[in-house]
């Protein structure tokens, strides 16, 4: 249940120049000027505990609407813990506690009187392991969020198609929408989970290592999906794969733990983090000297 389970084979040792090259190519596609849409989500002085153990210390980050932010760092640095504080999934762990604020549209999602289900409708999440509901068909899976949250839509079929198209899955499943979700391949299941989170129209999508259980081909498809989605929403992705961070993200935040709680070391434009990091620890990590 704790945040990290690794697949270290994806963390290859790459020269910084090549990563920066990927990153600048990615940025050329979409200039960071799209942050003109405003701040999508603001984390202020986030601390997180498991029992008495401080797992995350004082992280403040702004996430701009219409951009992708990658959270990178070695195992146990608190990035998954951090992302789970952003939609209040952190509190499902029995002894978990937190301090700080997360502002969505200027309102603290931890404020007293906030309906947590409303928060999770606006801040969706895709998990490391694809987790479609096995008792439901593909179509039911996509629309599950509506049922779970008692939302009404006028045309379910349109929404179904739209979500599957945005998740890049429509062409593969349009002829078998009534098949069970479990009959899809792992990569398709993960895109089904993405489509499922899109159906409730979140402003922010959190992705916790969404490709770590997928093969390279499926990973590529999910990354294409992320690129398509990023123009219309705020995406925050935890990844162990630095090439992936370089490929899909506009901004990158580097987390590190020196044995104690995880902390945010540095955040910046992705190409800067990979080419001219300000902190030597970031440089050591992105150049593959540790981690």
């Amino acid at each position: 249940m704790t945040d990290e389970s690794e697949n270290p084979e994806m963390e290859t040792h790459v020269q910084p120049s090549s990563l920066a090259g990927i990153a600048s190519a990615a940025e050329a596609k979409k200039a960071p000027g799209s942050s003109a849409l405003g701040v999508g989500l603001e984390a202020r002085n986030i601390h997180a505990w498991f029992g008495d153990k401080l797992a995350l210390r004082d992280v403040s980050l702004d996430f701009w609407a219409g951009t992708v932010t990658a959270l990178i760092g070695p195992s146990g640095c608190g990035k998954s813990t951090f992302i789970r504080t952003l939609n209040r999934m952190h509190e499902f762990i029995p002894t978990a506690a937190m301090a700080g604020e997360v502002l969505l549209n200027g309102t603290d999602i931890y404020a007293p009187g906030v309906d947590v289900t409303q928060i999770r409708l606006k801040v969706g999440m895709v998990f490391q392991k694809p987790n479609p509901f096995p008792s439901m068909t593909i179509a039911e899976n996509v629309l599950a969020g509506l049922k779970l949250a008692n939302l009404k839509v006028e045309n379910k079929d349109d929404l179904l198609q739209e979500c599957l198209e945005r998740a890049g899955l429509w062409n593969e499943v349009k002829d078998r929408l009534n098949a069970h979700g479990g009959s899809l391949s792992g990569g398709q299941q993960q895109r089904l989970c993405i489509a499922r989170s899109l159906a409730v129209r979140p402003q922010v999508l959190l992705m916790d290592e969404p490709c770590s259980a997928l093969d390279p081909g499926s990973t590529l498809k999910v990354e294409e999906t992320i690129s398509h989605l990023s123009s219309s929403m705020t995406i925050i992705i935890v990844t162990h794969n630095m090439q992936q961070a370089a490929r899909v993200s506009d901004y990158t935040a580097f987390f590190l733990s020196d044995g104690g709680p995880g902390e945010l070391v540095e955040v910046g434009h992705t190409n800067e983090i990979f080419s001219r990091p300000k902190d030597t620890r970031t440089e050591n990590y992105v150049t593959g000297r540790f981690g």
Partner: protein
Amino acid sequence: MSSVQVSERPALPEKRQLTTKPRFSDKVFRGVVTGGGLSSLLILGMIFIFLLYQGFSILHSQGLHFITTSDWNAAVDDNNVPIPSQSHFGIAAMLIGTLVCATIAVAIAVPISVFTALFLTFYAPSSVKKIMVTLVDLMAAFPSILYGLWGFFVLMPSAVYWAKLLNKFFGWIPFFSMQAPVFDRSPFVAGVVLSIMIIPIVTSIAREIFGQTPLDRIQAAYALGSTRWGMIRAVAFPYARSGIVGGAMLGLGRAMGETVAVYTVLNIVYQINWHVLLGAGGNVASMILMKFGEATPLEIKALMAAGLILFLVTLIVNSLADVIVSKSGKSGR
């Protein structure tokens, strides 16, 4: 490579038999567990043979009447010697009574148990959970006569009140209609007592299975903005459905076999009665208990035959349950 033609390829080899040489310790352990597994089967088989041996002559002489009629008449002459030719045994009322009481018990117990299990799994704080799990498990260990006495002295007066309400508002349903205002010691009361007795086992099974609901699915539901109830409906119920059916059937089996508690609160009458609120019911196990003390040797054989039938009916019900569980599918798992 290319010079090899398909037609020249050698025939497929024989499939090899895959064996392993078992280690001595493994052989010993295998013997121990096999013995354990077989012994329960052996005991069950011996009981079955005993009942069949004892009851066969009655089943043979009475034929199908044994389960289709409801007279129970052990004729004796002046010297108290049984007269087989004039004796008549039929347990139809008892069999139907058994099923009626057990069905009432399951109908009451399953919803309560499922709600209890949901509360314990998804709502209760861990301190409350610990205490309640212990208490519910303790309930399963209570002697059934205590349930019977409590049912007789405490529950029956209130159950009679509920029965009157049921009769007043649902009397138009044939099961709840009454020919005479006798609400005491009815199948309904027996069913309520039985339901309390099977709640622990059904709760315990439902709690186990709800507790195994995969965490990633629970989180998936919550991450979609689901309420807790929405998560339970979409994730926990589909996952636990077949297990709950299995638990209910185990409870049904227990309710069908329960003897003393039913004997305490049920008025046993040799007439088929579908009116569950009326103070006249039947129960195979309780009838055996009631008759056993003063039974003639012939009557004892008839009681054994009744036991055999109960044994078989329970077996059939449990097999049906297995079919239902496998039919209701693993789709949610």
